[in-house]
């Protein structure tokens, strides 16, 4: 029986092979794509066989570092399954886009994307704190190298910012994990289940800081814009689509269940930061003058909103947050790929030079419009369903929080509409006139289509998703909810 360990091992081994063996450009691309599709196939098998009420499935639990009490303990519950699914999908699309765009030294860039995928799946399925940490810190390296070696002109400053923020937070989390594991009664033990409720406020703070930076939450979002803007489009898609979700996921699946008392006590901090980030990010997104910056700031806003949902500490908030993570992953990955495609075709992402692209480019207009509509959560879209769940939870929490959230959702509509009109409509931009970029065709379209189709599928049948996730998401916040008296 295929367990989730296989989904970690296969891309990791493929990455090492790609790095070491002298593959040509074509061969490397096809091998990487094949591996990422194989992982996606494995995930589809998981979705098909998944029992919503069955707890952890497809797992392994074997001794790893015996003298330190570290075990290779992985498993998949509903929330993990959701995250692993988007990881597999977005990785495959990113590799496809990389093939289409034709990176030089492509075998190394594909290898690093596959390595990121392996570490991400590790994070999403870990049931042991050290396994979780290895994935969480491990993914930083391939992403940094991808940014540093294939990034845009401002990549050096971006790398420094990413290191300064995320590495510091991640390493503080290591100290928190070391404390939890080495002080376990009866010898060192890093099992997540055994660490529940043993941490004090400081351990909670160190842990939470890492996740706040990773997600990112206001005021630790400084690294996001340079990183998202300077990465190549497929890396930005992985970064904003999945890597940032590692932070949101860890809030829901690790921090809240491990520290129920602290999560209940300090929930207001995260709700406050989430609210500020949601409004502030949306406002900044509205002010940007190029596509990628709009999407980057909208990502900050959306992640803030998701974490706000987690810290509502009720079933609706948790399920809504998970759903929103998936939706936002699909939307932001697709938008980053699309924005990157536009930049390569039109030579610039700046709104000054774009505009009027809808004319005689029906496919591009349709795809952009679908993504835009999804991002601004028109009723009937899957994003609407997830935002509605979180909003319901927020109203349950208090009427004023619900009202603020509703205002934020309106903001989101504003910046997305502005993006759509600036790119597709209005006067024809000078670069559009001179370069006359083609319509979305074959290669690039093929990479975007799976993401768009998934969004449409989730919009048609959101219950397919929530039915699988609800039980796990509710269980994750239940003890913190009890502490909070809810």
């Amino acid at each position, binding site marked *: 029986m295929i367990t989730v360990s296989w989904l970690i091992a296969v891309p990791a081994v493929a990455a090492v092979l790609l*790095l*070491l063996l*002298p593959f040509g450009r074509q061969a490397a691309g096809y091998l990487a794509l094949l591996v990422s599709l194989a992982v996606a196939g494995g995930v589809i098998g998981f979705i098909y066989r998944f029992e919503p009420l069955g707890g952890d499935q497809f797992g392994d639990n074997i*001794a*790893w*570092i*015996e*003298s*330190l009490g570290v075990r290779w303990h992985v498993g998949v519950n509903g929330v993990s399954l959701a995250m692993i699914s988007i990881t597999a999908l977005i990785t495959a699309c990113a590799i496809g886009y990389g093939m289409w765009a034709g990176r*030089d*030294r492509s075998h*190394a860039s594909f290898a690093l994307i596959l390595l990121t995928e392996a570490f991400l799946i590790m994070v999403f399925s870990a049931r042991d704190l*050290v396994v979780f*940490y*290895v994935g969480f*810190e*491990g993914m*930083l*390296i391939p992403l*940094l*190298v991808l940014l*540093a*070696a*294939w990034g845009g002109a401002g990549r050096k400053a971006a*790398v*420094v910012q990413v*290191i*300064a923020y995320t*590495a*510091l937070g991640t*390493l*503080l989390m*290591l*100290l928190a994990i*070391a*404390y939890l*594991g*080495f*002080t376990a009664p009866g010898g*060192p033990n890093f099992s997540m289940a055994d660490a529940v409720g043993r941490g004090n406020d*400081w351990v909670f703070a160190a842990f939470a800081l890492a996740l706040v930076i990773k997600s990112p939450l206001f005021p630790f979002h400084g690294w996001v814009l340079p990183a998202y803007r300077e990465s190549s489009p497929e890396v930005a898609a992985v970064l904003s689509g999945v890597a940032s979700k590692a932070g949101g996921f860890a809030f829901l699946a690790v921090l809240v269940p491990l520290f129920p008392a602290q999560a209940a006590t300090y929930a207001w901090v995260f709700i406050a930061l989430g609210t500020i980030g949601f409004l502030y990010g949306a406002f900044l997104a509205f002010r940007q003058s190029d596509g990628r910056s709009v999407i980057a700031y909208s990502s900050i806003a959306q992640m803030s909103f998701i974490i706000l949902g987690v810290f509502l500490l009720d079933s609706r908030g948790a399920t809504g947050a998970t759903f929103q993570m998936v939706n936002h992953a699909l939307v932001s990955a697709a938008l980053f790929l699309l924005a990157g495609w536009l930049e390569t075709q039109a030579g610039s992402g700046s709104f000054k030079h774009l505009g009027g692209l809808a004319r005689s480019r029906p496919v591009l207009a349709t795809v952009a419009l679908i993504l835009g509509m999804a991002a601004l959560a028109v009723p009937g879209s899957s994003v609407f369903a997830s935002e509605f769940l979180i909003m319901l939870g927020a109203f349950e929490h208090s009427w004023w929080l619900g009202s603020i959230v509703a205002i934020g959702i309106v903001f989101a509509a504003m910046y997305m509409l502005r993006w759509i009109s600036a790119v597709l409509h209005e006067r024809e931009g000078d670069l559009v006139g001179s370069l006359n970029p083609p319509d979305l065709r074959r290669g690039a379209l093929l990479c975007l289509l799976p993401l768009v189709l998934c969004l449409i599928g989730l919009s048609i049948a959101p219950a397919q998703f929530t039915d699988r996730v609800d039980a796990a998401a509710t269980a994750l916040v239940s003890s913190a909810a009890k502490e909070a008296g809810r």
Partner: protein
Amino acid sequence: MIQGPSVDWFAIAPEVALIVGAFVLLLAAAFARGHERALSLILGLGTLIVSVGFSVAAWGDAPVVTMADAFRVDDLTELVRITVAALAALVLLLSVGWNRLREQGSEFTALLLLTCAGMGVVAGSTSFVTLFVGLELFSLSLYVLVAFDGKSRASLEASFKYLVLGTLGSIVLVYGAAFLYGATGSFMYDGIAASLAEGGSGEAVVTLGTALVLVGLLFKVGVMPFHMWVPDVYEGAPTQITGFMAGATKLVAFVALARILLDALPAVEHLWSPVLIIVAIVTIIGGNIAALVQTNVKRMIAWSSVGAAGYALIGIIVHGDLGLRGLVFYLATYAFTAFGAFAVIALFERDQSRAKGYATLDGMRAWGFSRPFAGMAMVVFLLAFAGFPPTAGFIGKFVISGAAVTNDYVYLAVVGVIGSVIGLAYYLRVIVALYDRSRKSDVGLPATPGLGGASLAILLCLAVVLLGGILPSLGLDWAGQAASFLTVAK
């Protein structure tokens, strides 16, 4: 007639083998001029294998105390002996294509074997007298080895600096030992400990002696503010010797430091512990910041090894079971990480026509594409320095920080974290330079002489670093077993 002390020859067999091997090699070379390289490789590696064989055979045995109780052979001694001999073997492998090995290989190899013998003596010392004998044996040999790149002024300069500062360190250490002898009437670690435990430890003589011993040892481990020799010597020495020093000298000096502080001076922990804490903080931050601004990769890693020494100090400060186990694991795996990194630099230097001072960030640009295996290995070694999974460096860092946070030294762990973040910044500069696409790389460099030996050395280091990170159980058990022979293992 004075009766000599009884000697357990099996216990000291590894050192005896090394010394005998060194002299046999020198004698044989006198009769076989022109075969220097083959002779030094065969006899050198053979001697090292015999020596390691003796150590492995005695692994796990009950500790043996011999030479008038001044030398103890326990698993910690064995671990140091094995690691040092393995590094020396890697030095020989890396030197295969080196022209100096063809010219004066027998002297080079004999000195290397004597260095290993001296290091074994230091590792097992339980008395300041044996310690000093071992220290001088390996230091004197190393002074010459550092200068072995005869034509290079940098090499001679490095050797001279090392000689002056190393001797200064030794003198201070001996001076301190003399004060401790005056206060306690013993050169033996256990004798000093017993005397200090009985009498008050507040005497000025004890304080002075402890301070001087500490300064002498901190010179040897190369932590701030006694680090000035490290960057210069590491940069100037032949690169394989740099790797050997970064790995072996550091390990041995730390074992000596741990044995003295924990076996001889536990009663005055209140004196040395605060000093070490300050030194560790200054070293971790200072070493990493200094490395940040380097453009010569060899010198950069030299500075980073200063920072790493500061990190290892945390293990001694915390001590206890976890701290010491982490210390031994960290140092033993660090030895192979550092050697591997310097081996890659050595290979790079050989790829260039000019051999010295050329491993700059700029010079290394895009070299990773020309030598894919060495380039990837370098990435792994750098990540191990930075403590990233899945390398042995991560496990070492994890255990030491675990020991720190669970023993109320959280601030030291936080300082270590800050050092790691700074470290990541400059390690990444090297990685990015190695894989800089903006410069055309000459794909398919011609094979340099000794490429096979160097690649094998790199591969072996890589295996240790990755196995120590992916399947660290065995290594941690060995480290724990060795560390259990440090007395104050709580």
